[in-house]
């Protein structure tokens, strides 16, 4: 039914444009990441994209929805790229595909498709896989041991044996393992970190360059009006604050805020994951609370929890709280006073 209702004008904007902008914002990060790790990253992205579009199409078909129109909104692609960027780059192909399956089929379509999912699909994929395959999900390639592309592909597709020497823990992992074994003493952490400094200077193994480009991509999204400043700001400041507190309390045991902000998925989480509008908060104050909660939880999980990085679980936990936060942070309606009384 063509609606006769006003307005009869529309701004040139669409969901597909928003999703394409998100992909564009991820692009510089992908370039630097693959320069650092190798073209395996690109292979993973292609693999995840194909799998995501395939699952999306199948689910749309099963749900009797217009396939071309909904594939054209690029939302599956964004999920796929986030999965490819958060999974270890040399993870076997079936792991990536399983992750995409969880994200698209379970987390997205079984909950009602785009706009209805209570949890961030990419983070559901990450959480499901890290619980099911903890060892594989912790095997990050040691940078600097760049393998030729064919060899990377062979590892991904299982033609070559997964050599343990090829993979190593991330800087976050190194510190956590040390922490767990009580191997850390005052001053020790700096040493440990220094040993990881192959390319970068403060986040270990060049991660800061990758995260920095994510930060730039996030700034681009902010400038384009795709996301609002609330979640990234709250996420980054809260993580900086809590890590600074711990660091000041005991610099020997805890690493500095800069390290935390620029390693692991912090920037990706702040700008691309925690800002997911569907599963996050929608009110401005709610978004601030969401960001603060996700930032603090991510720090706590990554420092004191079992898993190397905490972004996924932090975001999922905040996803659970989002409707409640929204309910209690409804903004004042124009013409009503803040206490709900009419002016």
């Amino acid at each position: 039914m063509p609606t006769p209702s006003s307005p009869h004008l529309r701004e040139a904007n669409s969901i597909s444009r928003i999703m394409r902008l998100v992909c564009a914002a991820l692009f510089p990060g992908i370039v630097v990441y693959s320069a650092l790790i190798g073209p395996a990253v690109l292979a993973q992205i292609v693999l995840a994209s194909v799998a995501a579009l395939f699952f999306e199409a199948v689910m749309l078909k099963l749900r009797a929805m217009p396939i071309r129109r909904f594939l054209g909104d690029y939302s599956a692609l964004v999920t796929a790229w986030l999965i490819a960027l958060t999974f270890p780059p040399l993870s076997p192909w079936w792991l990536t595909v399983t992750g995409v399956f969880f994200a698209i089929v379970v987390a997205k379509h079984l909950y009602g498709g785009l706009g209805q999912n209570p949890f961030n699909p990419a983070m559901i994929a990450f959480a499901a896989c890290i619980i099911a395959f903890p060892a594989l999900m912790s095997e990050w390639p040691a940078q600097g041991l760049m393998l030729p592309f064919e060899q990377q592909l062979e590892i991904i597709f299982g033609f070559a044996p997964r050599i343990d020497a090829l993979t190593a823990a991330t800087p976050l992992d190194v510190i956590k393992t040390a922490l767990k074994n009580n191997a850390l003493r005052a001053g020790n952490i700096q040493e440990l970190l220094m040993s990881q400094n192959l390319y970068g200077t403060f986040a270990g193994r060049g991660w800061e360059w990758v995260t920095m480009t994510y930060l730039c991509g996030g700034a681009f999204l902010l400038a384009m009006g795709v996301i609002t400043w609330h979640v990234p700001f709250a996420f980054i400041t809260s993580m900086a604050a809590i890590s600074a507190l711990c660091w000041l309390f005991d610099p020997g045991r805890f690493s500095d805020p800069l390290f935390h902000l620029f390693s692991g998925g912090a920037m990706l989480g702040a700008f691309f994951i925690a800002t997911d509008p569907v599963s996050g908060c929608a009110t401005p104050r709610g978004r601030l609370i969401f960001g603060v909660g996700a930032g603090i939880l991510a720090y706590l999980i990554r420092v004191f929890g079992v898993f190397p990085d905490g972004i996924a679980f932090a975001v999922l936990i905040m996803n659970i709280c989002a409707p409640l936060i929204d309910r209690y942070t409804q903004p004042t309606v124009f013409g009503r006073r803040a206490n709900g009384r009419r002016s």
Partner: protein
Amino acid sequence: MDILTAIAVMALGALLLGAALGCAAVRFRVEGNPVTDKVNAILPQTQCGQCGFPGCRPYAEAVAKGEAEINLCPPGGEEGMRKLAELLGRDCVPLAETVKRAPKREIAIIDENRCIGCTLCIQACPVDAIVGAARQMHTVVEALCTGCELCRPPCPVECIEFRPLPETPETWRWPEVGFWKKEDVKPEMAAA
């Protein structure tokens, strides 16, 4: 030993909580039965008896006591059932088969030429919406008629019929908008 302590702790906890609940039940007991009134307020007051009870209040009492299902009211429809479910903390249930037809308000109209002035319909009307006197022509007050159809059977000359109220620009409502399901998307739009 440990297991005994655990059992003791749990038992003590259960006792304390049980006592608290019991106290609360006594202290905060609700006087009377306001539930009936609340249920009655949700019912549409057509007094049509289609639920099988003689009027809205008896049905409200039965619902409040839990003796009747909440899906029996045709004029209330889906919306009314949902409100009852919300009020009583019950699950939503599909409307009963007898209720399925769309609730559309129709009002009684008396054919003036055939009315013999028997007053039977006046006696049948539960809401006093018919005026008239013996051997005088009767008429229905449009604004008061609930469309319960209780006046139809008693009429000996079958001069009462039911018609929907005509729509005017004042009573007109915007129609519901199509959702983004497949059946609402025209093929040429889907291709775009």
